[in-house]
């Protein structure tokens, strides 16, 4: 098929889908749709992880991002009752400038990569580093300390989120905008 391997086909399709869904995230007016497109983008990225032999990460990615974080987003959006009619829009000029700046950034990236040598990802099926066993070993030996610290971070975030999010009665923020 056009001289491309199945892997290359998969890479191309997944990449196109990821980029397309990402663009939809930005350009959809309805925030709920944005969230759903982001979830789709994340699925595509999870597919890339699988292609790269990072099976554990692919699973975790779907569970954490698509399953938890994006649900949280959706939940908040619904809580705020945001809909396309009330969705604020930037001035057309601003959006145009944003696009131009994005293009320039891309141009700079391409320029920076121009001289880089073409390395093939030549790793074979023998590569086992993406497996849970392997990753777990590294995580609990070499990165044990950061791993434990992460638990503290999550705990702190948990407490912080509850503290911020709970309805406070004694703080009066003036409401001018």
């Amino acid at each position, binding site marked *: 098929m056009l001289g491309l391997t199945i892997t290359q086909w998969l890479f191309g399709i997944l990449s196109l889908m990821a980029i397309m869904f990402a663009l939809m995230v930005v350009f959809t007016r309805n925030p709920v749709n944005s969230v759903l497109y982001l979830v789709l983008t994340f699925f595509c990225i999870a597919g890339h992880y699988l292609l790269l032999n990072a099976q554990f990460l692919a699973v975790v990615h779907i569970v954490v991002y698509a399953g938890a974080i994006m649900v949280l987003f959706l939940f908040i959006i619904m809580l705020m009752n945001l809909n396309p009619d009330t969705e604020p829009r*930037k001035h057309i000029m*601003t959006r145009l*400038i*944003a696009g131009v*700046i994005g293009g*320039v*950034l891309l141009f*700079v*990236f391409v*320029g*920076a990569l121009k001289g880089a040598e073409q390395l093939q990802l030549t790793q074979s099926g023998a590569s086992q580093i993406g497996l849970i066993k392997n990753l777990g070993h590294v995580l609990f030996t070499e990165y044990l300390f950061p791993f434990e610290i992460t638990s503290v971070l999550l705990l702190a975030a948990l407490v912080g989120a509850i503290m911020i999010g709970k309805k406070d009665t004694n703080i009066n923020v003036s409401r001018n905008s």
Partner: protein
Amino acid sequence: MIQLVALVPLFPLIGFLINGFFGKKISKSLAGLIATLAVAASFVVSLLIFFELEHAEVKSHVVTIFSWFNSDTLKIPFEFVVDPLSSWFLLIITGIGSLIHLYSTGYMHDDEGFARFFTYLNLFVFFMLLLVLGNNYLIMFVGWEGVGLCSYLLIGFWFKNTEYNNAAKKAFIMNRIGDLGFLLGIILIFITFGSISYNQVFPIASGANGTTVTAIALLLFIGAMGKSAQLPLYTWLPDAMAGPTPVSALIHAATMVTAGIYMIVRSNIFYSMSEIASEFVAVIGVITALFAAVIGLFQNDIKKVLAYSTVSQLGLMFLGLGVGAYSSSVFHVTTHAFFKALLFLGAGSVIHAMGGEQDMRKMGGLSKHLKITYATMAIATLAISGFPGLSGFFSKDEILAHTYEHSPVLWFVGQVASMLTAFYMFRLLFLTFFGSFRGTHEQEHHLHESPSSMTIPLIVLAVLSLVGGVLGLPEFWGMTNWMHHHLDVLILHKNPSTMPHDTEWMLMGIAVASALATIYVAYVIYRQKHIVPLPEGEKMPTLQRIIYHKFYVDEIYDALVRKPLDAMSAAFKFIDTKFIDAVVNGVGDAVNGGSGLVRKLQTGHIGFYIFAMVIGIISILFFVFN
């Protein structure tokens, strides 16, 4: 007892603290009692120390109180030195000091700042004792500055009067000029000898470079000029009469002004080594003596006369120091402390009786009303005039005899100055106590003898003025000059007198004859002819007018120092406001204006910030990868 020498300055310090903190809460009599007792206790301790030292084998003791500075090469212990010189000064300071404290309890009785006055007096005594007791120049400097401060506080004691305040400031500034010289001298000593303790510096002083020693001696003398009111820094002392009279007696006659003498006697080795410096001291001294005596001739303020007399007598003491007669100068310091304190206290008694009047033209005939004051003042006047047998006679004669040996010219000038002293002192006595009363009727009615707290010190001082001469009887009489022997250990370069005895007899004869002759002249002018100085504003002969206006020295200083300074400061003010301020304000305005422009970037819109951030990132990437 010598080891307990710290008690001597401690008592006045305690008195100062008590009166300083609780002076307003305790009664006047208690405050006066505490202050007086504090100094009296110091006097008792000083006496004990003095007698112990007299019988001790070792004449110089160093008592370490604590270590003060201790860094690399600079090691300065807080030490007191007890030797014949410091113990003698202790006696003068605490002895005269306690008498004056006693006197002040009577004199200041109606003053609202009573406790404050005693606070300052005690502080003054404390610093003076520190000055005398310190075993190094730094402690001396602390005391030196301290007495300057107290002098400022006490001269400006009645601070509601602007003129008194100005007098206080003048004293302080004049002293500062001298202090700078003194400080430089101390620094030079440290650089040269690596120490400023007396017992470390003096033994090695003779090995130092002659020029350096001259520089040290001259710098120290500049300090002495300021503190002891020598030309050209003397003008503060007459103005210092603005303070209460006991202050004049204590500070400006008996103790503080002798600090310069003490310092030079203490550092006598430098002056003995440097011909130029000692010559300079002698010349300045004798010129001051003559100059001040001439000014004193026509002053009408009773305290001003005494002030110029003090300057003149200090000049004589410096003359003695300059010709190497250190013990004679200390002797004269002692006798002068007796009779000058007495004169000031007597003048205070007169002023007290006159209800604050100080002008001698408004006095006269007071001997009838103030018998004790009159008698004691007469003794003091005789003593200062060099009347044979009284204390001043011996001390002055000793200085003049040494001067004659050194240089007859200086002797002649000194002799003239002492004649003038006799003249103006008797002028003061005749104008004040003889003739008829010239004041208002009300004042005459009010005349009264002072309370006993004031007359007792007068009597004590009068007795001391009478017999003080026994401390230094002339050796050619076949007597022992006690003072000379007492201080002998401290004078490192001795030049024993080689004068034939008949020359000494001749000098003494001249001194006596001239003193008596001058007294007679004064008697004729002011007693027989009843001449009273002209009232203010009347035309005087030119010379007299110049002298009356103190040779216009203040005006000359005004023209030479103040006017150029004023002009300079005006010029600098112009530069400051027009140029420096313009630059400074310009910078401020530029920043302000610039920030006004930059501020517009701070819109507060997050979107804009994000744009800026992204553009920044792009630029960074661009510059990194190209």
